[in-house]
């Protein structure tokens, strides 16, 4: 047998292209005259669109590469492209594309180094794309770190801003601690099972074992790393400060793409690797979910800064996404996993919609307080409508049907699996959440304060990259509100 592995280049084309593109942009930027710096951003956007196109030929197929031959059984593969992978890779590419569009003006206005900025962003995207396809512990960890490491630098890129450095430091410290804990857990898993491939770990764990307490400990520790990525309590402290300190498009990236990557990793680890221990980890996840949404919502009530509010709201939304995983104690993973996926997808659309408008307002009102949104409905009717609609979706109230359906899907999991208390906690949280989304949405349509006596505040000049980002997310939110089925129809083919 040949020792050299066959590589399926089509399967890895998207992350490969994105990684090469990142290097290309970095080099390109060095040779561009200062007047043409904007080119780097456009190349990045175009490259991401091509990467999205590369996913198309993979639809409906299951491709695996980097495989070890199985002894008698199925080969164990490190990189698998199936429905689950593709859904998340599409989300990552789409979300990153919106973030890049929003970044174009930000990079110019804040005089950020374009080459480094887009290189770091693309590097992180490459990691997220790989994470969705990885099926062994090592690839998982490496991919997760590839998502995180460039993010520290991205957050810290506004060197002149001390808040930015503080944000990056917080992100870095929390990340390092949680990664260390996770590595400890994963090494325990490896030590106890002797396997790194998720499918083989599941098989090994399925057999009764004397070292059960050690396995439970290992699983718990391993969850910590992903708890950080998705900003679940108690690993959520970094989120508000980091989001606020980072450039707004980077905050959008962290809250959508990076969080989605965390969720896909978590879902893979729990439902593929640790499936036999569902009755052990699921109640723990349920408690984390309840705490996360409650803490997030209660803290969001008191926010006056738009990005901070979205940060806390995204913590709360993570709680909702964890609910289905917390209802899996019965072992019916096939029933609950699609609910989490559906919510992550819906969340990506509506949260990017909110962040697009927040980025736009932030350009004109750098303080970005909720006060700055008063009267936006009069001066910028379309942007205000886009934000109001996104907020309605996040609250889960008509006309935001997308969010409503996503919440119904999530509610169904605990009701189905008999975890009633979690459904009730979530119900209360949805009510709390409504309050701050609604307060914000109404500020948009309140009379603008014209203390200066200037009458109508001037309307914004919206660049077409911003317009494209707002239009695309609003279009997607409206479309999926009317026909949410495509988002909900991912019963991922597990193994």
């Amino acid at each position, binding site marked *: 047998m040949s020792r050299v592995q066959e590589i399926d280049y089509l399967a890895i084309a998207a992350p490969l292209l994105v990684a090469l593109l990142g290097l290309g942009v970095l080099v390109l930027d060095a040779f561009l005259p200062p007047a043409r710096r904007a080119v780097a951003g456009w190349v990045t956007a175009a490259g991401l669109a091509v990467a999205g196109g590369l996913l198309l030929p993979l639809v409906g197929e299951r491709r695996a590469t980097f495989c070890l031959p199985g002894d008698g059984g199925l080969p164990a593969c490190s990189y698998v492209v199936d429905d689950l992978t593709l859904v998340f890779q599409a989300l990552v590419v789409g979300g990153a594309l919106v973030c890049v569009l929003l970044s174009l003006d930000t990079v110019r206005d804040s005089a950020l180094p374009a080459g480094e900025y887009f290189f770091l962003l693309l590097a992180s995207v490459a990691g997220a794309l790989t994470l969705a396809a990885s099926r062994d512990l090592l690839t998982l960890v490496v991919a997760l770190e590839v998502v995180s490491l460039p993010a520290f630098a991205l957050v810290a890129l506004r060197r002149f801003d001390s808040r930015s450095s503080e944000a990056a430091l917080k992100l870095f410290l929390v990340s390092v601690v949680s990664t260390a804990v996770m590595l400890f857990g994963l090494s325990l898993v490896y030590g106890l099972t002797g396997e790194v491939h998720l499918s083989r770990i599941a098989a090994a764990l399925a057999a009764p074992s004397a070292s059960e307490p050690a396995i439970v400990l290992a699983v718990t520790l391993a969850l910590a790393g992903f708890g950080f990525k998705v900003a679940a309590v108690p690993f959520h402290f970094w989120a508000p400060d980091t989001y606020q300190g980072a450039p707004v498009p980077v905050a959008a990236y962290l809250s959508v793409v990076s969080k989605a990557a965390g969720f896909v990793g978590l879902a893979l680890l729990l439902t593929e690797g640790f499936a036999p221990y569902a009755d052990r980890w699921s109640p723990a996840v349920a408690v984390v979910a309840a705490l996360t949404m409650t803490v997030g919502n209660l803290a969001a009530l008191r926010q006056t800064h738009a990005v901070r509010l979205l940060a806390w709201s995204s913590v709360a939304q993570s709680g909702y996404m964890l609910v289905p995983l917390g209802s899996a104690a019965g072992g019916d993973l096939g029933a609950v996993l699609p609910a989490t996926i559906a919510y992550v997808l819906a969340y990506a659309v509506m949260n990017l919609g909110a962040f697009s408008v927040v980025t736009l307002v932030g350009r004109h009102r750098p303080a970005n307080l909720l006060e700055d949104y008063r009267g936006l409905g009069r001066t910028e009717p379309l942007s205000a409508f886009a934000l109001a609609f996104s907020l309605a979706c996040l609250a889960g109230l008509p006309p935001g049907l997308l969010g409503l359906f996503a919440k119904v899907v999530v509610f169904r999991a605990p009701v189905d699996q008999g975890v009633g208390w979690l459904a009730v906690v979530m119900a209360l949280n949805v009510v709390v959440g409504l309050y701050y989304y609604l307060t914000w949405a109404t500020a948009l349509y309140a009379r603008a304060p014209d203390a200066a006596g200037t009458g109508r505040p001037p309307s914004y000049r919206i660049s077409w990259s911003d317009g494209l980002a707002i239009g695309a997310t609003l279009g997607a939110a409206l479309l999926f509100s009317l026909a949410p*089925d495509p988002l909900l129809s991912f019963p991922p083919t597990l193994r």
Partner: protein
Amino acid sequence: MSELLLPLLLAVPLAGAVLLLVAPPRRGERLAVPFGLAVTTVTFLVSVWVTVATPETDVEWVPNLGLRFHLGIDGVSAPLVLLTAFLTVLCMAYLLRVRPEAGRLRALVGLLLLLEVGMLGTFVALDMLLFFVFFEVVLVPMWFVIAQWGDDSVPGGRRRAANVFILFTLLGSVVMLVGMLLVGTKAGTFDLTVLAERQGAGLSHTVQVLAFLALGLGFAVKTPMWPLHSWLPDAHTAAPTVGSVLLAGVLLKMGTYGFIRIAVPVVPDGARTVAPWLGALAVAGIVYGALACLAQRDLKRLIAFSSVGHMGFVLLGIATLTPVGLNGALYANIAHGLITGLLFFLAGAVKDRHHTSELDILGGGLYERMPRLGGLLAFAAVASLGLPGLAGFWGEMLVLLAAFDPAAGLSRPYFLVLMAVAGVGVVLTTTYFVALVRRVAQGTSFEAWRDAVLLRDASRHELLVWAPVVALVVVLGLWPGWLLEASDPVVRTLLGGRS
């Protein structure tokens, strides 16, 4: 064609709302109300058409959720659909001349049209999740109507009243959603016709009781049932006239309709177990509402509290689980919608003229200063207290009759006690309405009001808007049969042929 009829009923006001949204601001502002009147009139004509044609629509919407776009209309929903379309037309007609002080008519009319979509949708939905969606659609428009066009006469201001309204209702409806999902996942369908036919077959007793409690909480907040009514007085008092009319006239009915359409037929076992409690809370509401009314110092607040009492009767009728009780409940629903709608129109007219609705400041002498308005107020008050020959009488009489002979399995002596207490409530209701008429309409006017220039009697325009309501109150009082004939067969099916 006929399957497009019910979607048309919802599409007309929705299209109207969207058109107003994109209309040019200046011209939109000027033409908003006539346009709204045209749209609601067309909607009303469509609602008459669907009542006659009784079409059905059933298409898949979100297969992954099991959500179907299933609409239908029958003897239980048709009167409520007509009532909704009718009251909305009147609200638009009222706005034609009586402009709210806050202005922004384009937005107000658009929101009222959206509200109409939600209200009509709730009454024609035959899928539980679809019902839930429409149930939620009304929240945001009504929130805006109260928060933007309301007044600050309530403690905490209109914003707080609107917030309390939406948070209470949402809390109820989210719990209701959990109940619906519980039933849906256990029964494998959300379709109300199928679930009503099964009469809870295949659902264990525990599931049924839990589901009834969860569903009931959502409906009870909306109805509202004592002690979950605390959102209602402030919301009604703060809301502008058209908001109060639709809130009392239609929105409250969504709760009681939910009990009859969903909670009772889908989980009948749960209903039987919880019915005695429901009856007790209903009667508590009747007495509490009446006592609270006796102590009110504000006209709009008094009418709001009277709703708590009237809705208590509706709930008592439902709690008996008999065809007589449910028919009575539905009848009382319609009667309350018309009479209380009228009362809020009148109270709004009084308030607009005096810039207050506090009884102490208003003083007596309405007959003297404004004979037509005073007379109408007295008429609406006696209709509301249930004078025989007017619409308010039949529903409450049927409910008391049903409590005299509740469904098999419910303790009869217990319901006799409830009936007796409800009877006391009737006496108290009569007392406060008579007291109200004496206090506001009779007697002589305060000096301050005598010379006031703005105190014109009801205009011809106002009389034209109110006349159809008055006529219907009389018609329903004299000929109750046709409405009961429509609802009776459906009610019997919903009760699964039980008597």
